[in-house]
Structure formats: structure tokens, C-alpha cells
């Protein structure tokens, strides 16, 4: 999908200057997720576990969107999501995980997610997250 086609789908994305935080302990996934975000013009940072995500927010940083993996060492996605919500963080959090059975999905959603996508992420799944979270203005 060319940048023009993507900008057509999301008319305000080209100027949006959205920011995102990738929270994942896998280098493979970090690289892919960052590339997907870059492709859509979304500035992004990456951390390797839930605790680092919490620390980043504690240090005063803020992001429009968090792509939160579930299984991570030290602090997993469920714990990190709960913690961020307890802190009053209102960033949109999209859970991205390979764990997709209903029970696990529900537990993750109930921790405070705004959306959930099964890994692996693709351009269309990321666009779906953005649509769902109203990161554009429909014309």
C-alpha cells in the first residue's frame, strides 16, 4: 500500500503526528511493529517489558497509542495495562498477542485495553486498530 493510498484511507494521518509506544520483549516483533508504525508516519519508541513502559510514563512521557504485548518478563502486558490505568493514563492501549483463547483475551481486555489484535501484526491490522480507536476524522 503506497503512502498516498494510506493517506487516502486516513485523511488526517499525514499531518497527524501521532505517537506510539511499542512494548514487546521480542526484537523481531519490535522491529516489525516499529516499521509498521513508521510506514504510517507514526513517531514511535520501544521498550522491552511492562515495567519499562510504566517507567517511561512515570518519567513524564506520553503517547497516543501503546501496542502492548502480553507475555513479557518482569512485568507482563496485563500487569502493565492495569498499572497504567491505575496511574490514570488515558492513552489508547491495543493488546497484541499470539495468545488468543477467549479466557486470556478477556483477562487482557479487562485489564484496561481499548482494542485487541492477534499477532502477527500487518498493515491492515494496524489500520484496523487506528480506525477502531478513532485516530482519524471520517469525511
Amino acid at each position, binding site marked *: 500500500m503506497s503512502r498516498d493510498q494510506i493517506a487516502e484511507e486516513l485523511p488526517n494521518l499525514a499531518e497527524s503526528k501521532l505517537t506510539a509506544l511499542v512494548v514487546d520483549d521480542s526484537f523481531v516483533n519490535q522491529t516489525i511493529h516499529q*516499521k509498521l508504525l513508521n510506514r504510517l508516519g507514526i513517531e514511535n519508541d520501544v521498550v522491552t517489558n511492562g515495567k519499562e513502559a510504566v517507567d517511561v510514563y512515570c518519567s513524564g512521557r506520553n503517547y497516543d497509542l501503546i501496542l502492548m504485548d502480553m507475555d513479557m518478563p518482569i512485568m507482563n502486558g496485563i500487569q502493565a495495562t492495569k498499572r497504567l490505568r491505575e496511574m490514570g493514563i488515558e492513552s489508547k492501549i491495543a493488546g497484541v498477542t499470539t495468545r488468543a483463547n477467549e479466557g486470556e483475551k478477556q483477562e487482557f481486555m479487562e485489564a484496561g485495553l481499548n482494542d485487541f489484535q492477534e499477532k*502477527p501484526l500487518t498493515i491492515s491490522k494496524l489500520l484496523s486498530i487506528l480506525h477502531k480507536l478513532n485516530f482519524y476524522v471520517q469525511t
Partner: protein
Amino acid sequence: MNTTVVAQLQRQFQDYIVSLYQQGFLDSQFSELRKLQDEGSPDFVSEVVSLFFDDCSKLINTMSRSLEQPDNVDFKQLDSGVHQLKGSSSSVGARRVKNVCISFKECCDVQNREGCLRCLQQVDYEYKMLKTKLQDLFNLEQQILQAGGTIPQVDIN
């Protein structure tokens, strides 16, 4: 630019990559990665798969150690390793590796050490096989570029 040579190489590339999909080495996630490759990151795919192969090597070593002592297998650590490997392989479209991980997980779930050892051997074989295949694919890409051609977009559906 020798257009005949380029056309031949492009054809070779196309046939080879299609065969990798048909033989189940790769699935559609690999095409998704290829879509992300652009002038700004011309080596994106080879960089990502390189990270994946590093993962394979590290995780296989760790899992091998977990399985060493017959009376003392850490199935929890094993399960964690398999889960990570399954995730990685799924993310790059390494279909055969991912499928072995599915069987591997089943063996972990029932604490079948022999089964786990077999799966470990198989996953080691599959990732090394894929590594060789992808190296050949990337070499073909380089040959096309050096001959002045462009790498074909191959639509896999």
C-alpha cells in the same frame, strides 16, 4: 543492463519464492514483511529474518539445556521458550518452524520429554533449512540488483 539476464534472474527469483510458499516454508506473513521493505529500508526483510535466526539459535540452546537432565526437566522454562519461538516464527512467516512449535507445545503440556527432544531436533533442522533457503533467495535479489533490475513483487494468495 542486459535485459535478458535480468529477465532470467527475475524469473528464477519468482519461481524460487513461489516454491518456498508452495512447499510450506513460508506463509503470507512473509509477504507482509516484503511489503514493508522500501527504498528507506532496502534490507528490512533480511534484517528481520536475521533477528529471527538469532532467536532460534538462542532459544534452542536454552531449551536443550532444559531437556538435558531426564529427571529434572524444567517444562515451564521449556514452554516459555517454545512460546517465544512460536511467536517469532509466526511474525516472520516461517511456517514449518511455527508448526513444529505447535507440536512442541503439546509435548510440553503433557511433559513428554522424548517428544520434546524430537521436536527440538526438528525445529533445529527446520530453521537451518529455512536459513539456507532464504540466503539463496537474498542472493538472487542481489544478483538482480547488480544486473540493474528490480526485484519482482510476487503476489501470494
